[in-house]
């Protein structure tokens, strides 16, 4: 009965099938809760022309920033790109197309994609460049724009603990975009710090039910801190 055992034994196996030209949805916020090793495996494979949806593009030399070094990303949907010099240069040189997307809209695009909702209305971005070319509609006297959802060929996700069925829990603010990303991949790959026995996670406390997860791997993580800030006094 191997049917629900989502574990794979290598990162190579975890990212099997990823190819140039594909769309990848990545969890993480800044360097927090990012699928470090899955990103590294994408870099190792050298696939190109990726479309990536993620809140940020990491920093130079870490996180999704690694994929910039060999110009593997040609299109990027993000809400914030301020921490990455290489990204900014590739953007200004038009080597990478950046579609800046409000953070809440980006999260909702993933959530809706996974939930079978092809489009939704939001007031976010109405009357701004983000709303240009998008349908505007009034509900109860307010203007909203239509935003379409996204489904990726792959979703790459960082969890804290999971059982082999792919039920995942996230830790603290490392949750961020990961649960939505997990729902929005045709193939969803999750890497976690620990794989536990089925039943160890309380059923009503699971963040990502295993039905969304195709492949699961336990890894070790650097968990780099982007802005180390400590209490004064």
């Amino acid at each position, binding site marked *: 009965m191997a049917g629900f055992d989502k574990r794979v034994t290598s990162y190579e196996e975890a990212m099997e099938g990823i190819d140039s030209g594909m769309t990848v949805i990545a969890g993480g*916020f*800044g*360097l*927090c*809760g990012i699928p470090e090793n899955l990103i590294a495996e994408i870099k190792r494979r050298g696939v190109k022309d990726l479309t990536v949806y993620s*809140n940020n593009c990491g920093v130079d030399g870490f996180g999704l920033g690694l994929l910039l070094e060999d110009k593997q990303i040609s299109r990027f949907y*993000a*809400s*914030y*790109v*301020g*921490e990455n010099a290489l990204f*900014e240069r590739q*953007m200004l040189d038009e080597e990478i197309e*950046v579609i*800046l997307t*409000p*953070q*809440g*809209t*980006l*999260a*909702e695009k*993933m*959530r809706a994609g996974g939930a079978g909702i092809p489009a939704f209305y*939001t*007031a*976010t*971005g*109405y*009357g*701004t*460049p*983000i709303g240009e070319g998008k349908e505007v509609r009034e509900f109860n006297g307010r203007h909203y724009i239509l935003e379409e959802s996204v489904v990726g060929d792959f979703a790459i996700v960082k969890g*804290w603990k999971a059982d082999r069925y792919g039920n995942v829990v996230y*830790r*603290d*603010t*490392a*949750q*961020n*975009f*990961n*649960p*939505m990303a997990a729902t929005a991949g045709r193939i969803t790959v999750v890497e976690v710090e620990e794989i536990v026995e089925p039943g160890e996670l309380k059923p009503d406390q699971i*963040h990502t039910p295993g039905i969304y997860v195709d492949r699961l791997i336990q890894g070790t993580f650097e*968990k*780099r*801190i*982007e*802005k*180390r*800030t*400590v*209490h*004064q006094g």
Partner: protein
Amino acid sequence: MALTREQMAMRVARELEDGFYVNLGIGIPTLVANYIPDGIDVMLQSENGLLGMGRFPTEEELDPDMINAGKQTVTARPGAAIFSSAESFAMIRGGHVDLTVLGAFEVDQNGNIASWMVPGKLIKGMGGAMDLVAGAENIICIMTHASKHGESKLLERCNLPLTGAGCINRVLTDLAYLEIKDGAFHLKERAPGVSVEEIKTLTAGKLVVPDQVPEMTFEA
């Protein structure tokens, strides 16, 4: 005298009410948390998924899984809740946050705000700001009244790409506290020692000045 960054934060902190859920943007807005008046309690929302943000951690408490929307390491206060980005923006977009305080490059007399992009110069992205201004009923902008070159940032109409349209109702600058309504800035208070004339000169948008414009006071 123009207000210091700390004084700006202090002044805005007086707008906090007991029981407010508040989102503080990056920069000066973050400092507001240091001046919460005695006897009132506010709960800070950080849009990466934390309600009830606490102080910065000690060296021992440092945890890469605990950050705020500015990517700084933080702690959670007892009774905090932590959730996904979709849930966080459900709160924001759904109007559940009581007060949003954020910075801006420009604000205009119709409540438009520009804060995320200077074409050809600066493209960092809007992060959560567009959702915040679209979702909140109650927004205070903190900004300098004019650029270093003396160009007003309180305009008839924003020049830079907008973050949100018709959404800002209060502005605190280093010179004044103003409300925006009926297509004009309404001068409410001025910084200590700053004249109404000076504020008039540095406000490009329509400015309504009442007979009395009280001076802000700050304890030493």
